[in-house]
């Protein structure tokens, strides 16, 4: 599958709260980060969790966030980072 984003792209995680199972932590929703790795294509856990095992595969990325962008009272410096695996449908280009 072709990927919409490349390493180095700045993206934002959708600020969405759908019902049901998903693997996108709340703390990074609505936050901007940078694509640091494309992990390959994997089946969407939002379908897998409910027994759809043959759904389409989707690109999975590792997105890096600055800690200071995630937590208002972060005690460390601006160099500290968090990296999270996010599926493509949870991402939008930063300027959109």
């Amino acid at each position, binding site marked *: 599958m072709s990927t919409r984003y490349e390493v180095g792209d700045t993206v934002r995680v959708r600020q969405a709260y759908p019902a049901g199972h998903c*693997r*996108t*932590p709340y*703390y990074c929703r609505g936050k901007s980060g940078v694509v640091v790795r494309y*992990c*390959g294509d*994997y089946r969407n*856990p939002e379908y897998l969790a409910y027994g759809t095992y043959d759904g389409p595969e989707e690109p*999975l990325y*590792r997105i890096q966030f600055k*800690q200071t962008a*995630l*937590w208002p009272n*972060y*005690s*460390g*410096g601006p*160099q*500290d*980072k*968090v*990296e*999270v*695996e*996010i*599926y493509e449908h949870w991402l939008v280009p930063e300027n959109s």
Partner: protein
Amino acid sequence: MSSDHNHDHGMYDADPLHHHPPQPDLEDTPLTHHQIMQIAVGELLIEKDIITADELRAQIDFQDSITPARGAQLVARAWSDDGFKARLVADSKAAGAEVGMDIGPVPILVMENTPSVHNLIVCTLCSCYPRFLLGIPPDWYKSRSYRRRAISEPRSVLAEFGTDLSDSVEIKVHDSTADMRYMVLPMRPTGTEGMSEEALAGLVTRDCMVGVTVPEGSGGA
């Protein structure tokens, strides 16, 4: 004898009817929902001939047999061979195969500590862990406290594990949210020149491959 238990249990007990409750047997504690489900699914899989009881037992034995020694073996080799280290970081599956180790079906990304970057592993959503290299995760790794605090205040968590890092070191927390697993490749401690791979592996603990500590003897960062 404590103050609330001021009697002897000699051979000739003055009060033979005085009994302490026995230790509860396993069956005296009710099964949880998930224990019942686990037993039921196991029985169904066997009943429907999808797996045999022997295969199930063998898989449990295999899982139980994995210890952090597997991860330590890879770390010690990486410390001894820069080429292997580069291959381990690039593709741990292939690097494992080089030394005859199957690291399992789930990709494990090896995160290398350097003098300027310290890596820490967590799964905030549940308890994903590089089981094929480190075995069963410790209870604290699965606790809500660790999952919540490792991601939002890693420096405090590290300090509580006795790991004090300079403010200038970048801390990178890897949240194992989906299809990848992670293992930290710690820095080789100073003063270990000339040690054999086997001896080096002895310095590599589970905790330093999760990233909450650094190997003993390390100059640190």
